[in-house]
């Protein structure tokens, strides 16, 4: 089957066309990735169209869509999810959300327990922990790097851009897997995709509440 993979939960604007069969691992036919935390909205749709064209396909050929559901900076994260949702509706194809760190964990796959940490800005990271078989055992959460060290189960390696930025605080060897790849995004959802399972709701993993303060009492507009 032909699957479109999208992710905008990190500074990487990620789109790829992936072939998935029951007998072999997912295979990348074409991908377009640009690292630019301010251009998700501009680049995502052009990227996915370019990837399709390079793969020799059109949108109507797709069987399903997979989209990273975060956690990630909100504004960028929503670009991927609303794009996937609208494509799914217009093409009448299922859209499968996958937690973004799960895809990064597959890319890193060291065969040892792993931490995945991505940049949450405000000097914090989004993080999740995985066992030696790659199953998520904790998270995703959002914490300051120094605080996560205290909460972390025993892991041997770390991956993700957050792990690189805060390597000196986290103190783990860093494996090269900064952003999720299209192939891993599809691999995370492979079982559901192949079974034609009903997709979960396309809900972003925000992990933080909106910044908003309720005003206290009547607002004085003069300095009485």
């Amino acid at each position, binding site marked *: 089957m032909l699957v479109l993979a999208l992710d905008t939960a990190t500074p990487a604007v990620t789109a790829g066309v992936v072939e998935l069969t029951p007998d072999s691992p997912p295979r990348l036919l074409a991908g377009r990735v640009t690292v630019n935390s301010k251009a998700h*909205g501009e680049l995502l749709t052009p990227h996915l169209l370019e990837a399709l064209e390079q793969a020799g396909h059109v*949108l109507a050929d797709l069987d399903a869509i997979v989209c990273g559901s975060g956690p990630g900076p909100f504004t960028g994260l929503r670009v991927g999810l609303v794009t996937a949702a*609208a494509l799914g509706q217009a093409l009448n194809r299922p859209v499968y959300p996958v937690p973004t760190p799960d895809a990064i964990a597959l890319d890193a796959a060291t065969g040892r327990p792993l931490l995945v940490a991505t940049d949450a800005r405000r000097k914090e990271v989004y993080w999740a922990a995985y066992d030696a078989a790659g199953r998520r055992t904790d998270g995703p959460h959002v914490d300051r790097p120094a605080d996560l060290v205290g909460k972390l189960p025993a892991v041997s390696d770390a991956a993700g851009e957050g792990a690189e930025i805060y390597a000196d605080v986290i103190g783990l060897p860093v494996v090269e897997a900064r952003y999720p790849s299209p192939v891993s995004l599809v691999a995370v959802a492979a079982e559901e995709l192949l079974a034609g399972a009903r997709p979960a709701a396309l809900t972003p993993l925000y992990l933080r509440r*909106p910044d908003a303060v309720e005003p206290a009492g009547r607002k*004085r507009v*003069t300095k009485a």
Partner: protein
Amino acid sequence: MTDRLILGIESSCDETGVGIVRLGPDGAMELLADEVASSVEEHARFGGVVPEVASRAHLEAMVPTMRRAVEKAGIELRDVHSIAVTAGPGLAGALLVGVSAAKAYAAALGKPLYGVNHLAGHVAADTLQHGPLPKRCLALLVSGGHSQLLLVEGLAEKITEIGSTVDDAAGEAYDKVARLLDLPYPGGPPIDKLAKQGNGCAIAFPRGLTGPRDSKYDFSFSGLKTSVARWVEKQERAGEEIPLADVAASFQEAVADVLTAKAIRACKDLGVDTLVISGGVAANSRLSGLAAERCAEAGLELRVPRPRLCTDNGAMIAALGAHLVAADAKPSSLDLSTTPGLPVTTIQIL
């Protein structure tokens, strides 16, 4: 040429809107669907729109609102001729949800995309109810987010801003005064209701920027809001009862007086004979009442679309898109950027 279906998507503030307009070969427009999902109740306890709350609501509402609009219009998405979307001005994160969705719909359906100006959309909304605009007209846009006087010389061709607020938008002043009087958010409807039982001449609140040396067409509502606050506090300190209905009516009178006086003066100065009032505050009974009186006196034609078309919605964006399609405008690129501070002179972003 046959009918063309234009889809409009709006997400610049706290309403997720999808509208569908049928554009006839002669340029006639018929509104087929106008679905809106509002997050206004989620903002009420904060006393104003919280951008992140609005953006989250847009993401949740986009596909369901689209589904309802398509169903209401009795069409299939694939029958759509082109897609228009608000690209600015508005809240950055909110705009991005609508524009990203619009790009995906345009790509999936293989249809042209038009990234358009929200303010021009407010003016276009009137053509859905009252038909084509004259060659030149003046538009007064008043809402929680904007207060502007525009010279419109073709919806797809030329719009010039001739005046705007130097501080608060008119609707913002309503929200702030409502809080002062312990009325709910948004403040427009409760103040309007209360004002009907009060005397608009009871308290002489100031008319901002109406002195001989002030800017002729600009507005200021911050001073008005402050003087309402001072007046209320003075009464409280003196242990006097606050005549809420009179305060509401006198405040509302000051807003309507300045807005209509400046709009009519601009019409006369610029030699136009039609005034369009749109935006959420256009639904205010005193504003439309006073505008009708003064336009009749001045021999001007007044056009105020029904309240549903005045507030933010997708129909107005579909209407503007239809004007652009009818004028053979070039579609926007799929790498279109949102522009939170888009000036009204830019009707479409390519």
